């Protein structure tokens, strides 16, 4: 089972875990990206994500296909949220299930790494002074280490 989506609502990790839970799997690996209050040393008060939605959905689906072929996961669910997000909220959730732990963990890592490389989604940070700026990981000092 594989499902990927760009969503505009709150991501519910428990629901995604329930979606992959099965007596056929022994390991579930979950990765959640959440909104931090600091980036590059600057205080962040909130975020908005925007997307080229049709292409983002197509890239997410392609990444899931590759991950399934590479790691043989039993099931994989990926959701990326767009729109306005508050501090502490989940921006992306990846839930991978496999009989064994190593491929489940590696699958979740592969998916988040690929998302950061090639899914057309953009993040704009909101600062305390009311200003906003698009995050460019090709320039940021700290973000490149992410």
């Amino acid at each position, binding site marked *: 089972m594989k499902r990927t989506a760009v969503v505009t609502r709150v991501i519910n990790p428990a629901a995604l875990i329930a979606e992959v839970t099965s007596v056929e799997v022994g390991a579930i690996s979950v990765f959640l990206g959440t909104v931090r209050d600091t980036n590059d040393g600057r205080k962040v008060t909130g975020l908005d994500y925007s997307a080229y939605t049709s292409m983002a959905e197509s890239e997410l689906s392609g990444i899931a296909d590759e991950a399934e072929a590479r790691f043989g996961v039993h099931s994989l669910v990926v959701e990326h949220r767009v729109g306005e997000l508050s501090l502490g909220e989940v921006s992306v959730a990846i839930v991978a299930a496999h009989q064994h732990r190593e491929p489940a963990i590696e699958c979740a890592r592969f998916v988040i790494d690929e998302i950061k490389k090639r899914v057309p989604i953009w*993040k704009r940070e909101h600062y305390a002074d009311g200003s906003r700026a698009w995050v460019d990981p090709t320039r940021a000092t700290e973000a490149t280490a992410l």
Partner: protein
Amino acid sequence: MSQVTVQLFASYAEAFGASHLKIALDPGSTVDDLVRCIRSLPAAGSLPASPRVAVNRKFASPDKLIGSGDEIALIPPVAGG
């Protein structure tokens, strides 16, 4: 001579103050030709030397030919996750 619509997002949409551009291209033009056209526009100063381009929702190489019905977008550095 045909006209293509180029979708803009995020920082690029902000730079051009628009959600899309209309660009006139000679028949047989490539992604690279398109990028050169766009970079010659006044608002293009903040664009990187080789911005990524998507054709029909896939990243395209510079030598890819552009057809008249193609869905084209200029892709700023992605920052999902």
